[in-house]
């Protein structure tokens, strides 16, 4: 009887711990929590920070990077990496802008589709070299980072497309909004949700994780590894192409340097969002939150009056903190999943 009462007394505590344990394993939650803390902290110092307009700007600033993290996540979970995304964005933004400037009659959807198609071609090149050549993606995409950027510069030849050359409908896409939400944010949200649904619920989506956590096992299990890797790179390219189209709509002015250096920001956002750099785990939702967190921190620093020169250092320190925390969480997770520990818990 006393033993029974004791067990009942212990029960809620254990339940709470289990809940906490489970929450600790949802990586998106950690990023989301930090995000809320950062926004709330800044709002205390400056209430105008949570004004709808400035929240909208936060989302808008993050949207292009967040979009790029979708493709990057799909590639990274397969234990690869795509360093060429910044160049793909730049190339497709410039070509699309030039075409639209020359033929202003092209509808907005057509312009975006052109961007996607151009990005897809770049992604296919990456995918073919990586999967057929059986060579490390880090090196391949470092190579195509130069090749695509070089092509971009060669095509641009020092010129740029100005906002005045672009049709108003396209620029409206970059600045307009529906029900108070900017179009760019909506588009990003749709892509994120679609990718999240695919990775979670489709067999081929799950297979990407299997490949990332153990390539040989995945191969032996009959997963068409090469084809999946190829597809992942093609998708990453297409997404970067779409981002190029949106970049054009948002900024209006496109030169050959558009998106230079973006690749490291995207990889940083993916890592902060809890996607393991060696594949096998992570979600597009987490990665998009990571992008939002990084760009929010930049805005917060400005609002808080921190000199601009500190921003990069703080971003770097945060990135290191994020991967350290992630490491500790995953170590604890591994310990919790170890059968002998579970048994010991049970016995105690």
């Amino acid at each position, binding site marked *: 009887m006393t033993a029974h009462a004791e067990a009942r007394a212990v029960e809620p505590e254990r339940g709470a711990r289990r809940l906490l344990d489970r929450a600790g394993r949802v990586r998106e939650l950690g990023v989301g929590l930090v995000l809320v803390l950062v926004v709330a902290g800044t709002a205390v110092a400056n209430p105008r920070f949570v004004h709808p307009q400035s929240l909208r700007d936060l989302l808008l600033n993050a949207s292009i990077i967040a979009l790029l993290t979708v493709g990057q996540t799909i590639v990274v979970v397969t234990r690869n*990496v795509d*360093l060429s995304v910044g160049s793909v964005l730049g190339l497709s933004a410039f070509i699309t802008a030039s075409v639209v400037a020359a033929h202003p009659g092209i509808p907005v959807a057509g312009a975006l589709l052109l961007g996607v198609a151009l990005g897809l071609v770049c992604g296919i090149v990456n995918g073919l*070299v990586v999967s057929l*050549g*059986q*060579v*490390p993606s*880090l*090196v*391949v995409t*470092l*190579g*195509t*980072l*130069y*090749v*695509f*950027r*070089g*092509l*971009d*510069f*060669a095509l641009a*030849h020092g010129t740029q497309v100005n906002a005045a050359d672009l049709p108003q409908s396209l620029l409206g896409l970059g600045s307009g909004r529906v029900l108070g939400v900017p179009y760019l944010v909506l588009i990003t949200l749709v892509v994120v949700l679609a990718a999240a649904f695919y990775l979670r619920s489709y067999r081929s989506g799950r297979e990407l994780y299997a490949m990332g956590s153990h390539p040989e096992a995945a191969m032996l299990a009959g997963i068409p590894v090469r084809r999946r890797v190829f597809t992942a790179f093609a998708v990453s390219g297409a997404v970067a192409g779409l981002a190029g189209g949106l970049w054009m709509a948002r900024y209006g002015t496109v030169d050959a340097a558009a998106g230079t*250096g973006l690749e*490291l920001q995207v*990889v*940083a956002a993916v*890592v902060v969002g809890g996607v393991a*750099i*060696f594949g096998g785990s992570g979600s597009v939702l987490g990665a998009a939150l990571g992008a939002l967190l990084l760009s929010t921190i930049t805005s917060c620093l400005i609002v808080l009056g921190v*000199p601009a*020169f*500190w*921003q*990069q*250092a*703080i*971003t*770097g*320190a945060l*990135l*290191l903190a994020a*991967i*350290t925390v992630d*490491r500790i969480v995953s170590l604890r997770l591994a310990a919790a999943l170890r059968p002998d520990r579970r048994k010991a818990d049970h016995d105690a």
Partner: protein
Amino acid sequence: MRERLLRWETVLVLAVVVVALVGGGDFLNGKNLFYLGLDIGEIALIALPLTLVIVAGEIDLSVASVLGLSSALIGTLWNAGLPLETILPIVVLVGALCGAVNGLLVTGLGLPSLAVTIGTLALYRGLALVLLGDTAVADFPSSYTQFGTTPVPGTDFPYPIVVFAVLAVAFGVLLHGSSFGRAVYAIGANTEAARFSGIRVKRTKLILFTLTGAVAALAGVVYTLRFSSARADNGTGLELAVVAAVLLGGVSIFGGKGSLGGVIAGVLLLGGLRNLLILDDVSTETLTIVTGLLLLVGVLAPPSAVRFARWRAGRTILKEATR
């Protein structure tokens, strides 16, 4: 013999010779070689320790930021009135410290070096900006900046190349002629096996990252004196060029494979080709494309050669069998 000829290092050296021959007199004159030497200086320097890091199966993307931090530090300390003789050792020490932080995060916490050094890439560049902002310090006396603008008396070599030569020999002996170097290869080939055979994996990696930081800071000194301008954004984006040179030199990104000779040939090939194309008034965009294509060739060629050799061997066996 055939195997030796097919080695990637040999192909690179031949390519360098071809570049030199194509360039002819314009390329091979003293003045041009002097500028070539200056142009590849920092990349060549950083490529040396980075080769060891990559052979050990890790990567360091923060090198260009360490270069920038070192440049900003030179400017700050110079503004504070310190003489350069005092500044230089401090700068190299701080660089070593930056490298040690990378190494500690990788070995102590077991974090992936790619993620760690993307973080410190931002962190160190940020610290450089905090130190110096967007100002430049340029009032160095010419007795120092001559380091980058005049050749060593009696030769066509700029001083940085002398520094490079000394370090190249040192790192060559370290990687190819010492038990430390064999440990580096062993770690890159199979970390677990290396650990079980008594190699101190963590210590070795920590040393490699620290050395890389120190040399990157030294490259920052060279860079600052060459342009006689200390700026926080010096060398932005250089990390990808250095990694490209090392990988073109035949070092496997997965570790365990590659040689310093190959990397030096890779640096020379990239630098030489760049120089040659500039001499021929080829645009910088073409240069960028060529760099990328070379890297792709570098990564595709070795496995393709192996596959081709296997295919030939298979065909010979088939011929023998059907005869």
